């Protein structure tokens, strides 16, 4: 069982996954849809994230995503992941600026 994410002051949670069709990183929005831009992710506290994670995992196949989990972000707008790994997932590989998620439609 995955350990709960430990949150530092000023941090909250977002849900993330990969899209089934193309594997792209996606983030769960407040309207229940998945989007490739972390700026559209719902920012959740621990209790909200627990409920949302359960629901999103149950609906993963219907929503066309795989590997749903929660990860810590700085509670700013747009949210910024805490770890290097999640920053790279959110923004794209650092070695190819032309592939930055922000530049995609």
């Amino acid at each position, binding site marked *: 069982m995955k350990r709960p994410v430990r949150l530092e002051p000023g941090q909250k949670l977002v849900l993330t996954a990969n899209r089934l069709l193309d594997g792209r990183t996606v983030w769960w929005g407040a309207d229940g849809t998945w989007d490739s831009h972390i700026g559209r992710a719902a920012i959740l506290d621990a209790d909200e994230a627990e409920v949302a994670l359960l629901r999103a995992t149950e609906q993963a196949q219907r929503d066309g995503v795989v*590997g749903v989990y929660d990860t810590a972000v700085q509670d700013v707008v747009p949210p910024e992941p805490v770890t290097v*790994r999640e920053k790279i997932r959110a923004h794209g590989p650092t*070695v190819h600026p032309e592939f930055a998620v922000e530049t995609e439609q």
Partner: protein
Amino acid sequence: MSIPVGHYQYDRIDRDFLQARIAEFEGQVNRRLDGTLSEDEFKPLRLMNGLYLQLHAYMLRVAIPYGILDSRQLRKLGEIARRYDRDYGHFTTRQNIQFNWIRLEDTPAILRELAEVDMHAIQTSGNCIRNVTADEYAGAAADELVDPRVHAEILRQWSTLHPEFTFLPRKFKIAISGSPNDRVAARFHDIGILARPGEAGAPVFRIFVGGGLGRTPVIGEELFDSVREEHLLATLEAILRVYNAHGRRDNIYKARIKILVQAIGVEAYREAVEAELAQMDLERYRLTPEAVAAIRARFAVPLLEAPADADAVLAQQRRDDPLFDRWVRSNTHVHRDPGHIIATISLKPGGGIPGDATSAQIARLADLADAYSFGEIRITHLQNVVLGHVRKDRLRDLWLGLAEVGLAEANIGLIGDIVACPGLDYCALANARSIPIAQKLGARFADTALQAEIGALRINISGCINACGHHHAGHIGLLGVDKRGEEFFQLTVGGRAENGAAIGTILGAALPEDETVDAIARLVDCYLGRRESGETFLDTLTRLGHEPFREAAYETV
């Protein structure tokens, strides 16, 4: 269609099998997409077909058996990069190629395109016998005793879909060479095989077992010194059976054969293999001269003809052009034919991404292979490309052609020839980014004159303890580690994969990413300041010991 130089020619059975396998996988993909298969059910099926799910997309790893391609195959890889990926591919430390931006729904179509040129992605993942690697100079090098490719192909056929070895305790890697100069890291493989001539013309095989890198680096131990050709398959079968029966399956980190060999000792392992051989029907596994000849017949032999003055032409061109001369010094190897030479093409431009090639570069390499090396290309486990049979008097024309697409870097075996895994920019297992630190080091030492002055010095970078960048075997090794979400790098020195294989020694505590390049520059300065005439980095390290280098690395001004 003519038989390709350098690799085995598929027949109808091979091609029918690939089509059946693709149809099977297409059905699995469709069932995954419609939800009939869960991700847990689908994952082992996609991995058996080389398809991973990484950080940003699916990654498809395509097998390049013993690292050898023909030009139509390479051209196809370039087309796949352009049509289905983001216009580039990444050559790996297992002589394969990876595409980093693949869509699941495109995968059956990609596999069909690969099958058009007799390629696939089978057994590039999973707990099975992976792509068998071989000497990148096979069949060409002057120092070679036995061309290992025919036996590499025999091992490929033996290990492909082997019913007993499809679900091993863990992945299994085999390398084979026929040169006294180990260019395949034989002692860092689950099984390493060194072929040499035996009596009556047939080769004999020295077999090492239980080597490996990863979180527990181990140098393989000699299991047998002289296995006769007729018993090669029986012996490998017995080694695998012992591992399959006794290798641990309860702990993924202790499941490789190296752990078993270390646990029971090589003597006990040898006894177990001999006991297995004693109860096997050896006749069933006997590799007959006729069977070997039948495989050999499906390899075309290059017609090596060169003008009598080819050597003199090359010598004059080197005198006339210092830049060309520098490239020849670092990027060529002596061919068995005096009119020919082996050219290694660096995929390590200063500040570039090790092992990456764009679709345009891939297409140009295919054209150059057709023009200069019988349409044959080799991918090295050091993430470079080799044209094995270049006429000496045409080498400069090749070099000029390479320069047009940015592939004329003169740094093979030098500090700029950095080996790096994809790291945290792509890999779901990684803890740190390998490529940016490789780019910074490549840029720091981009001057090829400086690289030549530094001499033989290999840097290997891994983004996690799984060691796909072979950092333990680097003269200088970097291991990326995660400390509270930040990237650090642990430095090792003194590793080597060639003859006299050694595991690098950790110098000290891991350094923050932004201090690592400077620390390595100080290591190099320490070597340059204290080396004696003719010494390489490893020579100086051996003479002085680690302490001066540790002090240099951790010196703070």
